[in-house]
């Protein structure tokens, strides 16, 4: 077990853990602090707290989510100090309350004809060849769209769809309810889809 190895001072075990998670920690920290250098500092600071807190690690959560929760905690403190932004609990509430639709309401028929109401007036078309979807230009657009999302949406989509975390892991690390996690993921994915649809329908 890796935790036991770390407690015994096994450097190889620690190096393995760092290789597994450091890049993720830096990326996650970047959701809170303005630049890579600060994100690096936060990630390194997190490792120190991980080591100091090893005795407090509970096997109920996975090591990965435990480390991420420490990172989020430290990055939030650091981010608030640097940006004096609105408290994060308010950011979550705002993101959940905004009620943005997944698709522009204009694309559905209005209530005039009850048989057609809320059905597609302008139905989506297929995205076309996969090469285009995974081309670097398209990837740039995906990254840009994610960067423009609200903090809460960005966190959830990054962990779920880029890092491949499970819903339960994200809920634990970010302190979210299952429903809130899903709403944030839905809004975030819907926006990326809309951006891809706009882009891929532009030119062949």
């Amino acid at each position: 077990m890796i935790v036991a190895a770390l407690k015994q001072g096994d450097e190889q075990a620690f190096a393995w853990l760092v290789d597994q998670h450091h890049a993720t920690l830096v990326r996650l920290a970047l959701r809170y602090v303005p630049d890579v250098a600060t994100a690096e500092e936060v990630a390194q600071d997190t490792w120190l707290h991980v080591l100091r807190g090893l005795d407090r690690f509970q096997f109920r959560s996975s090591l990965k989510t435990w480390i991420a929760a420490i990172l989020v905690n430290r990055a939030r403190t650091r981010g608030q100090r640097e940006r004096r932004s609105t408290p994060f609990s308010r950011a979550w509430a705002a993101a959940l309350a905004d009620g943005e639709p997944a698709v522009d309401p204009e694309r559905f028929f209005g209530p005039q004809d009850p048989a057609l109401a809320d059905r597609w007036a302008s139905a989506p078309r297929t995205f076309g060849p996969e090469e285009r979807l995974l081309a670097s230009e398209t990837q740039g657009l995906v990254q840009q769209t994610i960067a423009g999302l609200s903090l809460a949406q960005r966190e959830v989509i990054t962990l779920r769809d880029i890092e491949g975390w499970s819903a339960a892991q994200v809920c634990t690390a970010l302190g979210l309810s299952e429903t809130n996690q899903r709403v944030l993921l839905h809004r975030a994915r819907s926006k990326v889809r809309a951006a891809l649809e706009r882009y891929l329908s532009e030119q062949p």
Partner: protein
Amino acid sequence: MTTPHASPEDEIRCRELVELVTPYLEDALPPDERAAVERHLAGCDGCQTYLEQMRLTIRAIGHVSDEAITSRTRDEVLAIFRTWRQTRPS
């Protein structure tokens, strides 16, 4: 979001379906709503395409590259470890 009922007029419509796609893909819908989504999909090309677009979107997001950890950073983090190992109470 309204809850679908049994009568055909109250079946879910496209505008509602697009809001149910994520809970549908996460398998988080109650059985009756899941069945209503599947009934709608079976008869709606537009929503089938929408669902496919959403699956492809998730793939495209997953493809965003993962920058590797640089060796300088690695050395710095390992130095933190060595310091911790020396100074911790044993």
